[in-house]
């Protein structure tokens, strides 16, 4: 079985990147292995945990369920697109301040999901936030602080 590589051009965090990947590699793998953007995490690889959430053309998706080749011509936003130090993006700051960060492994996915929510719905209700992050599993905490952090970030951005 041949392993022909496909060339793709994808804009990642505002930067145009050209790569050659085998078709079976997922977007998640491409980000982590080929682009060394390890902020996006791998966990279940079946779209159940949300740890791999990125924005694909502005929409939150599980990057483990997108083949890298499908993203040819697309715009990707990963956690690394947000601030890497002070001043932090309001979501990042709120997550730290509100006690939403414990081990941190679910956090990049949570933040990207929240980013997508706030872009669509700048004044979400608590129920909206719960619905939005329902696809992101956290095992350390009980979600309450994460929901508080998203609501606080929404407030801060107003």
């Amino acid at each position, binding site marked *: *079985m*041949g*392993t*022909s590589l*496909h060339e793709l051009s994808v804009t990642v965090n505002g930067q145009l990147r050209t790569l050659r990947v*085998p*078709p*079976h590699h*997922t977007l998640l793998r491409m980000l982590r292995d080929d682009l060394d953007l390890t902020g996006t995490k791998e966990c279940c*690889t*079946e*779209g159940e945990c*949300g740890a791999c*959430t990125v924005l694909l053309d502005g*929409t*939150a*998706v*599980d990057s*483990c*369920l*997108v*083949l890298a*080749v*499908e993203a*040819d011509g697309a715009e990707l936003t990963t956690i690394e697109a947000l601030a890497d130090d002070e001043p932090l993006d309001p979501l990042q700051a709120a997550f730290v301040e509100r006690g939403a960060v414990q081990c941190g492994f679910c956090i990049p996915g949570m933040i990207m*999901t929240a980013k*997508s*929510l706030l872009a669509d719905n700048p004044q979400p209700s608590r129920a909206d936030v719960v*619905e*939005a992050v*329902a*696809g*992101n599993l956290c095992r350390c905490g009980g979600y309450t602080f994460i929901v508080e952090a998203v609501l606080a970030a929404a407030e801060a951005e107003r």
Partner: protein
Amino acid sequence: MTFAYHRPRTIDAFWDTLAGSPGGVQLLAGGTDVVVGLNKGTTVPAAVVDLKGLDVLRSDIAAVDGRLRVAALNVMSDLIRDERMRRHFPALVEAAAEVGSVQIRNRATLAGNICNASPAADTAPPLLVYGAMVKILGPTGDRSVPLRDFFAAPRVTVLEPGDVVTAIDLPFEPQPRGSAFLRVTRRRGFDLGTVSVSCLVARGEPARFAFGAVGPTPLLAVDESGVLGPEPGEPAAEGEAIERLLEVTSPISDVRGGREYRAAMLDALSRRVLARARERLERGAVGPG
């Protein structure tokens, strides 16, 4: 474990690709079922054909000839947001909202959900009660198949090699009706349905019920007795009518639920979804859009 990947731009290129892939192809739209299989190694295709390059499959949800048309590449999030969908086909919106997380809904296509043909496909029961039609483009031309004739067996549809679903049509109906969708799951968070039921009631028409995860395919059942109409009837008669409807189902035991529980939930959900559909009819479901 790798495969050839194609993304044809035209339907002719699509058919050429199929012709040039003797080992068979796996069609790919949203990927929320297919890529899981690829990742887990349970789907091992020689070639994957990405349908997202085909303009013939892509369009906004549109009202066409008395139907609301969902193009093959429309995703669950599109359905949930569509005002006409919410007004006229609320049970489908309810089901689409439960297909999975927002990340899943942003990718999963309605067409993909039915083509995957899981007996537990969430959108199938509402689509069945709404009398959805599946528009198919094949090498010999277009055709339209009622969804109730579309499922052949678990994970098997009536699609032939070379066929591709282009759209799913939901007929608008002139008279008011009420419809609803309910599931039982293992937790409140996103889950596969242990049992799902949808119902549609309208005046002067037999009530329609559809069931998911309780047979080799999603199942449609029409209440010919007329007992389960818009007005609540005598409880014993209603119970019997529901029991008769459920004769088409054959729940099994698996890791998500036991047979007896499923059977009991079918009965319970059928009653609840009927009550909800009646209530919606009462409140004034709408006519044509």
